[in-house]
């Protein structure tokens, strides 16, 4: 009798405790993210697929098509092509195809890059029903991004200007000495971060008589 009464009392007490806990949760804020309407910001060192790093001074890719990443890739998913622009000392990238269907996000390419020209992007919404969407030309993306920024009215140097900048002094594309991420030992997330921002690029007067060089065909 005594035992069973005690059992009832402790059982009831545990029920009350449970209900107190749940009502406590009831008044706390939500913990979920309403995905299509809002999404989480990826952390700084999130390792998405790779992307080309933009040189903050010129607005063009840092990459000069040395093809180390292509060689480092264990699954052959990177194809790089470069060409020498008029008056430039080094080659600059003209095509950087990443076949994401084969990529396993191992990061060997980023480690192999000696100039910090590629880094992990923060993109993760990569779902598609079309296989071609995963074969991405990262160079073309970079250029499209720049053109889009231009269309929005932000001042970004055109390729013509870039060439103009590049040729007289040995800076710009070729001026990799100013790039801080030269050493391969730099951790992936620490790749030159301010490079993504397009806004603070130099606002130079355009030179209209300069010919607009189209990306030349891949030299063979």
């Amino acid at each position, binding site marked *: 009798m005594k035992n069973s009464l005690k059992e009832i009392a402790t059982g009831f007490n545990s029920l009350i405790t449970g209900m107190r806990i749940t009502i406590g*949760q*009831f008044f706390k804020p939500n913990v*979920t993210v309403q995905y299509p309407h809002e999404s989480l910001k990826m952390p700084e060192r999130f390792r998405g697929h790779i992307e080309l790093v933009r040189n903050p001074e010129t607005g063009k890719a840092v990459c000069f098509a040395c093809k180390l990443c292509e060689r480092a890739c264990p699954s052959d998913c990177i194809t790089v092509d470069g060409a020498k622009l008029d008056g430039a000392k080094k080659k600059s990238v003209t095509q950087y195809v990443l076949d994401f269907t084969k990529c396993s996000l191992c990061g060997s390419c980023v480690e192999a890059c000696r100039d910090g020209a590629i880094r992990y992007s923060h993109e993760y919404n990569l779902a598609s029903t079309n296989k071609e969407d995963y074969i991405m030309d990262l160079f073309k993306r970079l250029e499209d991004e720049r053109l889009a920024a231009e269309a929005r009215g932000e001042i970004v140097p055109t390729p013509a200007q870039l060439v103009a900048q590049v040729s007289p002094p040995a800076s710009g594309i070729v001026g990799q000495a100013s790039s801080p991420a030269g050493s391969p030992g730099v951790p992936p997330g620490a790749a030159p971060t301010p490079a993504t921002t397009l806004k603070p690029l130099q606002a130079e007067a355009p030179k209209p008589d300069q010919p607009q060089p189209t990306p030349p065909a891949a030299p063979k």
Partner: protein
Amino acid sequence: MQATQHFLSGLWPEPLRLILFLVGILSFVGLNAAYLVWVERKGAARFQRRPGPTEVGYAGLLQPIADAAKLMSKQLIVPAGVDATLFRIAPLLMMSPVLMSLAVIPWGQSVAARSLNVGLLMIFAFGSINVMAIMLGGWSSRNKYAIISAARVVSQNVAYEIPMLLVVITMIMVTGTMNLSEIVTQQAGAFWHWNIFRVWINPLMPVTFLIFFTCMLAETNRAPFDMAEAESELVAGAYTEYSGMGFGVFFMAEYANILLGCALATVLFLGGWQSPIGHLLGDGQSTLGILIGVFWFFVKMYFLVFSVVWIRWTFPRTQFYGLLNLSWKILIPVSLVTLILSSVMIKLFHQ
């Protein structure tokens, strides 16, 4: 028939008044069934710290309408080999007793469709029918899950009918009447006049209320006693073979039963339409006083409904022997004790 003065009775003749109440109760039950689903989902979401339905209308408020439209547009499939008549009758048999019982619930001072002298008896007489409805639904659908679930429901309901009726007998002894309006009238005054706090008649009155509430949860097949449709064990329990509005009516009846149970608990224990702080505006007889009474009734009833949701999202489903143990080993002895205690107390001190 009791000759109480009915709300609205001066405005309309008797048949019109009845039709008014009939339409009122039907729409009230329909709306409540729909929006209690919304409350349930929102409540569940809040307890789990997520927002719940948000897409259809503001805060998902149109979600029940979308659900209803979906259910109504679906076919009620009658599987081959089932007893088609019983299969079709079962949902209606589940729904109609609740609607009948709601007719005697006094929503406010003289706001009741029918103020029967045997109102309490009528509710429990009709309340037993929906057990049979689930049994018929499960049995006629010729499905093993449905039959197992129906058998569970019957044994569960039989087990919990006993403590519930013992508690109700206690309440009838305490109040001396089966007329629900009368029971509420006796609890007039501030909240310590409510039956749940009348400890000078029976020191175990709050316990009596808890037993009633627990039995109500079990009778309406709510979690943690939801053996009838133990989703994780028995597909959808007795409703496995039902589709379209057959299922919809079962679902509505379930929520209507919860509503009835909470309304009854409000009437029996929480003072029905009586305000917890006494009458501030009017004397409770004027139209405004009656409306305030209805307001208090709804506040109490929906608090209980919220508690039902709260309990559901706090406790996991009991095992079947745990459920029967709770009834036979705890609830029935305790309710017998309260019955004997209150009869002794009434005999000795309150005659």
